[in-house]
């Protein structure tokens, strides 16, 4: 039965694959460490003032000394980003599906969507704070959600439409109905596009939440914290806040990547990190 394998390497064992991935990460890790070392060294060599650019080691130590306020604030912001990400992405997928199903709808909605997308949504942050309670997470979720909505809409729609006419003809020759074609062909074809846009959205969600907080929010939030620390020239803590935001953003991104790998097991190994 088995025994004949034509493709070398593609089906390597999990251990070997993990090992190879680790090796691929080494150059990036080396460059990262070098960058940190140059940063640290430059501050020492050129006597750069602490408030202009704090030392990486000081920023990291702030994660502990100010951890009592930073991490709870980070959690608040993360929840807002997550809420906006979930809501905005879900709306994007739903609208894309509707447009994909009813083409006439696309003719009406897409020009509007494109025009709306050209609006710098960040500029709406103060207005969203007025519309919703600025102290409640809803106002930040709204900004994060609107930011996530467009990339997910456009990419999902593109994925749904990238089914080849031959694939549809084949399914029709089997007398497959519209629903079957969606389930068996359109959705699987669109999935890689959806995940690509979710990765973009995961980053945008964090940006949306923090920028929303810059314009006011509960004190227990990263954006508010970073802004007020910067105002009192406590840049070390502000930087630590940015670091926390980055780490949480990275976590959300990583969660999407994991979900992608679990969902799309069939794809060739070539995928962007």
């Amino acid at each position: 039965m088995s025994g004949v394998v034509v493709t070398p390497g593609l089906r390597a064992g999990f251990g070997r694959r993990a090992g190879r991935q680790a090796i691929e990460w080494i150059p990036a890790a080396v460059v990262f460490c070098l960058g940190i070392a140059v940063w640290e060294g430059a501050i020492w060599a050129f006597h750069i003032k602490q408030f202009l650019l704090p030392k990486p080691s000081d920023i990291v130590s702030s994660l502990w000394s100010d951890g009592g306020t930073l991490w709870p604030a980070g959690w608040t912001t993360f929840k807002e980003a997550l809420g906006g990400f979930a809501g905005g992405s879900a709306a994007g997928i739903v609208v894309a599906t509707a447009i994909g199903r009813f083409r006439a709808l696309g003719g009406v909605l897409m020009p509007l969507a494109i025009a709306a997308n050209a609006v710098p949504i960040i500029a709406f942050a103060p207005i969203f704070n007025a519309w919703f309670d600025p102290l409640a997470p809803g106002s930040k979720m709204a900004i994060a959600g609107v930011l996530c909505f467009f990339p997910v809409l456009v990419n999902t729609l593109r994925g749904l439409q990238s089914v080849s006419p031959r694939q549809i003809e084949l399914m029709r020759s089997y007398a497959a109905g519209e629903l079957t074609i969606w389930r068996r062909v359109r959705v699987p074809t669109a999935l890689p596009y959806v995940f690509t846009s979710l990765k973009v959205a995961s980053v945008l969600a964090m940006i949306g939440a923090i920028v929303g907080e810059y314009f006011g929010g509960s004190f227990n939030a990263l954006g508010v914290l970073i802004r007020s620390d910067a105002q009192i020239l406590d840049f070390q803590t502000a930087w630590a806040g940015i670091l926390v935001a980055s780490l949480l953003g990275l976590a959300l991104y990583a969660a999407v990547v994991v979900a992608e790998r679990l969902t799309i097991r069939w794809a060739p190994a070539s995928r962007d990190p």
Partner: protein
Amino acid sequence: MSESGRPVVQIEGVTKVFAQGNVTALQDIDLELQPGEFVSLIGPSGCGKSTLLRVIGDLVQPTAGTVTVNGKSAGQARADRDYGIVFQDSVLFDWRTVAKNIALPLELLGWDRERRRRRIDEMLALVELTGFADHHPWQLSGGMQQRVSIARALAFEPALLLMDEPFGALDEMTRERLNLELLAIWRQLGSTIVFVTHSISEAVFLSTRVVVMSPRPGRIAGVVDIDLPAERTVETHEDPRFFELVTEVRELLRRRGEHLLPEEEQALTDAARAGAGGAGE
């Protein structure tokens, strides 16, 4: 396998005008296919051969005329899953393994898992891909992908196999091997095949009948009965009768008295080369 005497496909007065651009793709086509026939449709681009294939398969609706398949309308035949289709591009689904690609029509037909598994094994053996069940399409060569596509089309034993330039994108050597494999499968299963091709020698080599079509509007220019021995081998290419038939098809293609399109030139050169190649071996 089908009831004898009654044609598998009966095409009467089929005309197809594409509203977009007002192009007459097919005009007054009459054609009958008997059970177990291997009929090739050949002609230059724009002669409507692919459109005719799709009209038979109920993927394109004719403007006028009727298509009857096994005594039913083409639409009913499609609903009854009477068609197996193979395109030039294998149209395999990347997210499915080879086995699951072959299983797709069986799943739609509601076959249970055990029955599907047995049929997949049979089909893999038929197209000589045993051992590749768990591979994904992108792990296979173009020729292997096309064999999976053929296995999928035959898996549910359709009354009619429609092939739209199935080997057009393959290299000459793979193409010759797959031609022989297809003939072996056809003899084993006794299916009826409609085969669209650009290649005169391929059409003559494979078919029991070659339908020559001409463009603008798409019409049947002539039908050539291929009276070569039923058993076709590599040596068939060197048979003097083979050359005569190739010439006959070529003459029909040429007789239209119109200027040849580049694709037609290519088809003619291919045929000439096939003759020269046979002599040079």
